[in-house]
């Protein structure tokens, strides 16, 4: 039983940042643009939240700074992708490389060279939900978490309502299917898409912060290790649905947690293979996704006003 609890707790810890990034990406992609730069944004959110928490010793400021990083990056990406209509692919990749270089450079110059070690920061405090946390197995897994995790749980139904039950959400989904028709109907395509991009990157920044303040308490070079891309794979294989994101995201978490346990218990399986599993899963997800899924009709096509 303890093994099951350990597996699930590990899975949830791995899943939370993925869920955040995937939810944001889902909204952005439903509105018609690829958010390939969330990997770099997660990384920058992670570093900034680590740095701020280290210097101010205030976890809340760390979280907020992660959000701020996401907002600023989102504004920038919206300018490039939505307003200027440039290549979503190359912009995303450029941002990721810039972020990796920036965070590693600042990490070396401002942390390693200054402290000669990697100082740890305090993690977010765990809050036990009374009564519910005593439920066997599920209790300790789902009801003994930090506030941000509970926030993520709540975000699912809230986002679901906004996306599927409000006119705002309808506009978001519509501009990804046919921007021209929406424009003819008087919907401000640029504004809707910009908001979706902002949402995605803000969540990505927060996701990075949870990586640091929720699990490790420190920063390492390239610590996101492709999670941003996995989030994109999750969105695709979930057939661009919120429920799919929840399920597939958790599945990824179980895979990762399971792989970590396997590394200990079955050392005969090469660890490099186990580390590669998320990426292999990602590609398989993409294949499966391409076979059965239906992506938003105008995903990737920039809306350029030729008036």
């Amino acid at each position: 039983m303890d093994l099951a609890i350990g597996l699930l707790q590990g899975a949830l810890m791995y899943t939370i940042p993925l869920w955040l990034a995937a939810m944001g990406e889902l909204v952005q992609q439903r509105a018609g643009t690829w958010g390939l730069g969330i990997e770099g944004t997660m990384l920058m959110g992670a570093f900034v939240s680590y740095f701020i928490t280290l210097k101010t010793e205030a976890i809340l400021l760390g979280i907020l700074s992660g959000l701020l990083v996401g907002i600023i990056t989102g504004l920038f990406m919206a300018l490039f992708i939505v307003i200027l209509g440039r290549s979503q692919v190359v912009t995303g990749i450029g941002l990721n490389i810039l972020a990796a270089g920036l965070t590693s450079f600042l990490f070396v110059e401002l942390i390693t060279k200054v402290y000669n070690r990697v100082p740890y920061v305090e993690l977010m405090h765990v809050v036990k939900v009374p009564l519910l946390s005593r439920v066997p197995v599920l209790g300790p897994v789902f009801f003994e978490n930090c506030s941000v995790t509970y926030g993520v749980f709540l975000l699912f139904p809230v986002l679901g309502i906004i996306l599927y039950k409000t006119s705002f959400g309808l506009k978001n989904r519509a501009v990804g299917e046919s921007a021209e028709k929406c424009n003819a109907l008087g919907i401000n395509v640029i504004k809707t898409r910009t908001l979706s991009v902002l949402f995605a990157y803000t969540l990505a920044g927060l996701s990075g912060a949870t990586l640091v303040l929720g699990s490790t308490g420190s920063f390492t070079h390239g610590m996101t290790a492709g999670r941003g891309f996995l989030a994109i794979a999750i969105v695709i294989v979930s057939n661009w649905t919120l429920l799919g994101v929840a399920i597939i995201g958790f599945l990824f978490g179980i895979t990762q947690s399971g792989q970590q346990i396997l590394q200990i218990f079955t050392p005969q399986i090469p660890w490099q293979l186990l580390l590669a599993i998320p990426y292999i899963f990602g590609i398989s997800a993409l294949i499966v996704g391409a076979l059965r899924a239906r992506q938003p009709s105008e995903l990737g096509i920039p809306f350029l006003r030729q008036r």
Partner: protein
Amino acid sequence: MKKPVYILKAIDVLKPILIIALGLAIGGILIFVSGQNPLTAYQLAFKVFTSSIFKITDVFVYATILIIIGTGLAVAFTGNMWNIGAEGQLWIGALAATFVVSSLRNAPPAVLIPILYISSFLGGAVWAFFPGMLKAKYGTNEVLTTLLMCPIAIYLVIYFLWGALQDPVTGYAQGELIPEAAFLPVIIPGTRLDIGLFLALAVALIVFVLIEKTVIGYKIKIIGASPKTAQYGGINLASMQIWTMVISGGICGLAGAQLLMGVTHRLLEGLSPGGGFWGYGFMGIAVVIMSKSNALAVIGTSLLFAFLISMTFLLEASAGVSHFIFEFIEGFIILLIVWLYK
């Protein structure tokens, strides 16, 4: 009639120079943020650069790699196949070559070197075939598939470095030193500049001719410009897409052998920097876009970029600036390219 073409060409040359210059400038800003004087740092680096022929020829060593990758990507991008996985193809090319060289340790250079280049080509081609096939058959986005194949390639290489290909001499998780016969002959003694440069230039020329003057090049251009037109014109779209990826991947794979035989002389984790996320394969993307997918322009752009690489490595060696600044500049340059090129 002549003048407009002339002016256009000048801008095409000025843009890459401007971009590289801006890259160095933003690097300076970052150095300043980290508390050092960028001017002294750059001065030191430049002094070291001009002081030795080894350092100056190193620009051509890096350029060789970039020319190969840039050319390989030029093929793919011309066909509108977004091969973001050049890095992975490079690694698998190096892996394939390492396997071959470990069983042919006693062959003479005239046999060994071409065989290793060919094996790396095949390695890269096979690695690119898979995403190409997925795109052609199922329409799977090749950007994500080629991208995800990069870390898989790295882990595969690391697996073998810890196992079958582990160095029996030192016991470290690196490949065995390749036999002297596989060391590429050096052109200028006392430097690392080897005949690979000629190979790179030849490849660029061949690809340019291939794309501009041959039927297959024409087909690649068509599927790149308009898949529908290609199909109406009787071109098998799926088949050409796969061929484009395979050729592109193969050429990028060559870069792996070039690094193996000319620079590191063994397979190891630092073969291409960045652990599979920002190495030569990605720099090649910046190069090919700045060159507008023109294989000949790639030569010039690669030299510029290689100069940038040299300067940043020297910045670390002489002024102690962390080498990660290069990665930052690389990303910044890619974004500049997106801004300045449609």
